[in-house]
């Protein structure tokens, strides 16, 4: 056990919601700094060096997207964005800009806590990134040997299928946007060709899932991207 609890920075302009987040997070033994404006948030990121940032996209002073872009020029600080419902385009943009995860308001605090834990876990893992074997339920992916098993049976994937799967594995539990996937697999000029992604995702599901319409591992986030199930809910 570390003797210092992780420091979380909350940037949220609504006072009630800010106080709710602070109370909930402190109750979970996190240290919390809460700010109401993007400017103050930026200052706190520099001075306090928090372990994670919870950022509301609708801030009064700086646009949340701009803030993410600015932060990403110099830090890998994990960011969870909060957004109002039915704004998939905002969420996608935030993720493309470098946010790590998102939640739509209103959400359940248990959900928030699980996302925070997952993100902190991932950050902690990063330095010793030798963990090249991913396993969840019956799915096992060996990134170094480029092998995939479902229920101990090896599955043959095409290079692109494996590429797609490995990106999701490296971000297991987190959503990867369509754009990020297209760019990483086919290159920047293919970011509008979402049908490539659909076809390969279908093939991958046909090989890995029992029922393609009810995928267990390769989950769809409608209008945003894909998320690989990592055992956490």
């Amino acid at each position, binding site marked *: 056990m570390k003797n210092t609890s992780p420091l979380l920075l909350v940037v949220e302009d609504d006072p009630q919601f800010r106080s709710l987040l602070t109370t909930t997070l402190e109750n979970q033994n996190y240290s919390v700094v809460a700010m109401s404006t993007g400017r103050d948030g930026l200052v706190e990121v520099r001075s306090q060096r928090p372990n994670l940032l919870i950022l509301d996209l609708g801030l009064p002073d700086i646009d949340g997207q701009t803030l993410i872009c600015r932060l990403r020029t110099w830090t890998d600080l994990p960011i969870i964005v909060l957004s109002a419902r039915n704004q998939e385009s905002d969420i996608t943009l935030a993720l493309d800009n470098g946010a790590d995860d998102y939640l739509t308001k209103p959400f359940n605090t248990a959900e928030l806590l699980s996302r925070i834990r997952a993100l902190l876990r991932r950050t902690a893992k990063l330095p010793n990134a030798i963990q090249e074997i991913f396993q969840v339920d019956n799915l096992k992916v060996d990134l170094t040997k480029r092998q995939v098993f479902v229920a101990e049976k090896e599955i*043959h994937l095409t290079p692109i299928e494996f590429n797609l799967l490995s990106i999701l594995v490296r971000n297991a539990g987190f959503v990867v946007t369509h754009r990020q996937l297209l760019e990483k697999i086919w290159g920047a000029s293919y970011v509008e060709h979402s*049908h490539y992604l659909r076809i390969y995702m279908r093939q991958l599901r046909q090989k890995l899932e029992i029922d393609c*319409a009810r995928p267990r591992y390769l989950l769809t986030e409608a209008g945003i991207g894909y998320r690989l199930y990592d055992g956490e809910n």
Partner: protein
Amino acid sequence: MKIPWNIFFHLLLSLLVPLALTLVAWFFRDILIPSNVLLIYLLGVFFVAIQFGLFSSVLASLISAAAFAFFFAPPIFSLKIADFDNLMGLVIMLIVGTVTSKLTENLRVKSKLIENKERKASALYGLSKALAESRSEKEIIHVAVHHIYAEFKSLNTFLFPDRQRLVHYPDESPLNISLQTVDLNVANWVFQHGQMAGKDTDNLPNESCVYIPLNCSLGTIGVLAMNPIELIEEQQQFLETFVTQIIHALERAKLAEQAKEATLKMQTEALRNSLLSSISHDLRTPLATIIGAATTLETDAERLTENNRKKLANAIAEEAQRISDLTTKILEMAKLETGEVVLNKEWYAPEEIIGSALRCLDKKLKYRQINLHIAQDLALIHVDAVLLQQVIVNLLDNADKYSPVEQPIDIFVEPNTSNLTISIADRGLGISENLLEKIFDKFFQIHTESAQSGVGLGLSICRAIVEAHGGEIHALLREGGGLEMKFNLPVLEKPPVMDLEENGLTL
């Protein structure tokens, strides 16, 4: 040029008729006494009077008199008349001929007037009938232009104002009898002053056209421009009557339009009211629970058992979720209604959207059997996945709400030649047949005030989304009981081609 020829022809006939009668009477001269011959001439004079008028008939009677004196009254072949009776007969024939000619002439003029009136009446009747049958301003103008041309042989056009109160040509392409040489400046002057202008009027008499303002109780609503016509006063009046009819028709159309707008406004108002009452009911009920539970927790927390505290907290969470769902639906409907929603279409695999919809309802459908009937390798569809997922979630949610939990829900996805049909079918009680379409109405609820009820927007949202995609959605009663919600999405374009990896190339 025409008129002198006409007169010449009339005069020629007024000569020929008595001469022809002379020939006939000469032929029967042995059996006819001279006074009978006079009667035959009289007949001819009448004929000419009826056909050609006073002047011709007087001429005809004079010629008849001369012919009678020359051929029939002894001494024959001389203009002298020996017999006094014959002379008297001749004089009487002249008098009778002249008087009857005069009378016939009067009758002729009168009948001509009547005929003219009748023609005008029938023209007016034709116009007003056609106007009454016209349903829109456009049709009225069409009728008016045609009738004015038919009656007055004048090219014409109607000019109406735009938002800036400036008149301009109609938007639709001109008819071949439309006047296209209008001076819009003059037309605007006429429109603004409500006075006639143009050729032979008090204003701008040098203009080549005539501009008539369309004045009615609503003010000046437009301008009629036409080529000038030779109008005697009577014709002038007739034109005025004509135009008045047209103005009335236009006024009627305008008033009908206004009435329609007012009705629409009233309906919108009624809709807004039902929205407000619906929202206030559906928001207040859960809010009452939330506020009640929260204040109890706030003031009495230490006296509550652990279990009761949990119950209250749970109630708050559940009711808040209800409000959240409700506001989402209302906002979504409002967005769809105002046309603010721009479809963010991309290529998707149909089964993927079904899958993500099912995942949204994961918790709710935990104990429900869902049977999927989805064909393998369906073509990609070009849709807004988020909205389409919403449709499926709403339909599944309804199926879950209104059918017993032990009954399965079936989802069918079937490709057709030109569309993709998706249906979600339950084994619930179904609904009565006359409600199959009504359930898509906004704020329609089968069981009002029931605990199950939402705000009655779910299906209207579904319909709006499906229709935005160019598809249709309907409710059907299912064979063997239950309700089937079926919608289709037209497949308008083929998915783009892509270069796939060679299949043999595996790891």
